[in-house]
């Protein structure tokens, strides 16, 4: 399936883009993470949470095809 992945904050310093579409076979969040770690070597130094369909999810969450976002520590306000 094709999944939109969005990058925010200091993650953009590593990916140099705000979003992209990745192609991945069925699986779970950890599979996306592995793919992105291979693509962006510096990503493993970064602290972030992952959202799917705008909800924070764990590495074991099944992929639904909904938008995924890599969210570094929040610093609003």
């Amino acid at each position, binding site marked *: 399936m094709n999944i939109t992945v969005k990058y*925010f*904050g200091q993650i953009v310093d590593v990916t140099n883009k705000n979003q992209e579409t990745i192609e991945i076979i069925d699986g779970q969040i950890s599979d996306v993470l592995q793919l992105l770690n291979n693509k962006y070597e510096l990503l493993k130094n970064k602290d972030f949470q992952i959202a799917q369909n705008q909800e924070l999810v764990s590495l074991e969450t099944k992929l639904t095809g909904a938008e995924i*976002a890599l969210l*570094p520590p*929040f*610093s*609003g306000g």
Partner: protein
Amino acid sequence: MKDKKIKNVFREGAISSEFIGNSIYKHQTKTSIGAHNIFLGQVRADEIDGKTVTAIDYTAYEDMANQKFHDIRESAFEKFDLTCMHIYHSLGTVKTGEICLFVFVSSPRRKVVFEALEYIVEAIKADVPVFGKEIFEDETHQWKKNT
């Protein structure tokens, strides 16, 4: 499913003191209110390794953030006897001394507004995907960390 009445909390750039004054003014017709409590976040000119912050550039995962602001609002109205509640957060560049967060709660009684305001501000800091990039005089940057 997402609620349909989700408001957009974000404003482009700083939140002006006139906007805040005007927001206070609009509440003077609501005569069941006895107490207002307002929190304002202002951008500090922090000095870090000899360089001074001149502005913060805010970005957000906007859809998720507005959903989280909405959830915080619903939860606050459930927990506290509030008459009104308003939240505004800046996006884009906010210079030092300017205001980036405006949270406004009103209630018949004062004890309620103190509890509610702190609850809301802490929830915003913890749950809402907003990202602040601290810009130094020399145009280098670092990513803000909330404490």
